[in-house]
């Protein structure tokens, strides 16, 4: 569904990523890993059509994404960024309902049956029934993240782009959020998700896209990426690998030795 070929991306006039090739298939979960500032968010924004690549192309089912009309794009791609605060006192119910925006012509102010159905499905999938009538900003970070995901699901887009959905969340809540996203891939939704925790990414993703040194160093199943020395190269530190009891590989930074 997403096909990127020879993509070069700039941020603030400076080239951050070059020669990016990748495909995202229907129902696939790809985790985007890499050190701070490498261009993970820049790549995500380009996939959402927010920014136009300086070179190369990113297509959605054969059409360059930035050529799609904004509303049409939003019916196919839901992008959840992580950096903005809400100043307004919005109820959870209203936040989720805003997800129906791209399906609503400007003259229609009330929800249709289809809107209601999509909202109900999103609410059920994210288990936020109990706080629908609460004020969004009064919720905990984990609850807020669930609400954002519910909004993105209500949007009904087959492709979900998420920028660090587990930042600020504790281990259990982060696990639940990722499990919820994983669950969505079973119905054919594709997920491209920026993550920081390598082991978290390995546990949930079908493939890991590893960014480093201005390019995509690897795009492979988690076991391969974790075993590869490219991981050490990407982050610029040595990694230790260990095996868990159930046979998964986990990585931790090697202890640093003062010089």
């Amino acid at each position, binding site marked *: 569904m997403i096909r990127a070929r020879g993509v070069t991306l700039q941020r603030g006039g400076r080239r951050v990523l070059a020669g990016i090739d990748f495909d995202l298939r229907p129902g696939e979960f790809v985790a985007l890993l890499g050190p701070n500032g490498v261009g993970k968010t820049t790549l995500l924004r380009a996939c959402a059509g927010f920014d136009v690549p300086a070179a190369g192309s990113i297509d959605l089912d054969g059409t360059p994404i930035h050529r799609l009309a904004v509303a049409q794009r939003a019916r196919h791609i839901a992008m959840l960024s992580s950096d903005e605060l809400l100043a307004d006192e919005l109820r959870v119910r209203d936040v989720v309902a805003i997800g129906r*925006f791209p399906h609503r012509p400007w003259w229609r102010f009330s929800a249709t049956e289809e809107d209601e159905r999509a909202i109900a499905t999103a609410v059920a999938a994210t288990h936020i029934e109990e706080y629908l009538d609460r004020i969004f900003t009064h919720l905990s970070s984990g609850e807020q993240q669930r609400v954002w995901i519910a909004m993105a699901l209500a949007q009904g887009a087959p492709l979900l782009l998420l920028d660090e959905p587990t930042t600020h969340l504790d281990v259990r809540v982060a696990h639940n959020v990722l499990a919820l996203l994983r669950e969505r891939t079973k119905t054919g939704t594709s997920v491209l998700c920026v993550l920081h925790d390598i082991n978290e990414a390995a546990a949930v993703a079908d493939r890991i896209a590893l960014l480093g040194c201005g390019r995509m160093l690897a795009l492979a199943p988690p076991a391969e990426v974790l075993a590869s020395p490219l991981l050490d190269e990407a982050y610029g530190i040595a990694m230790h690998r260990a095996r868990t009891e159930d046979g998964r590989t986990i990585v931790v930074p090697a202890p640093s030795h003062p010089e």
Partner: protein
Amino acid sequence: MLYRRLLPPLAALIAAGVGLAVGGDALPLSQVMHALANPHARDVAHTILWQLRLPRVLCAALVGAALALAGVQLQGMLRNPLVDPYLIGTSAGAAVAIAVALAFGIALSFLPALGFLGGLGASLLVAALARRGGGIDATRLILAGVAISALLAASVALLSVLARSVSFQLTLQAWLVGSLAGRGWSDLRFAVPYAVVGAIVAIGNIRALDALRIGDVRARGIGLDIERAQWSILGSATLLTAAAVSLAGMVGFVGLIVPHLARRIVGSDARALLPASAFLGAAMAIAADAIARSIIAPRELPLGIVLAFAGIPIFIIIYLRREQRR
């Protein structure tokens, strides 16, 4: 929830009733109704109502509703509760145009049109300075608005110092504090088309304003064309503010306070908030104008002064209460 949505129109209706009844000569409500129901009667009450009160009340309603609608849209777009429609330079531009017109002795009947053009010009300049990429940068808009307004205000002060004519000073002063004295049907006819276009664009902006509540980047993610929404909101706010300024000069606080009051009553859903703001703005301006006309009759207070004395305490109370609740 429904009864809360009915409060603002009700307030506007009551204010209109009071506005038609009070003034230099108080008319009992029965006489007001009778004169309204018989537009072709020829008594004194009829003349007062149809030639003086009704156009005044309608002017006040337009000024209040237009400023409130402009304010609520700009606050929503910039997600800044302290934004006022004058921030985008409209009032300062109008004031300069008026001051220049007065300095050159241009006929008073041209002032509304000149004020309108001056306001529009200054807003366009501010918008041009606030451009970034295809859209508008919130911080740049606020900075450009403050800077241009300050420059234009200094120009007005300069003209005022150079002119040294008493009539110039008095007319200019009336514009600067905001007043509806002497406004009638012809002024209303000039301003209504712009206000109506601004209001129609505002209705088209409702959907965007709702989406903007979740932040610019997220709103873009759900398919809002941010740039188009920003220009549309700015365009509507400029038309509405310029129409209000052309009628009444720089009436302060309505555009700042009314959206807050409306939000308290109907919540932040733009579908309810925009009409509520318009009705409350109209109610507030009509009521203030009624006070301005009657409190020291037969003389008049400028509308802007009454609104400031009524508006600022309300504003302070809202903010103090907010702090206490948190």
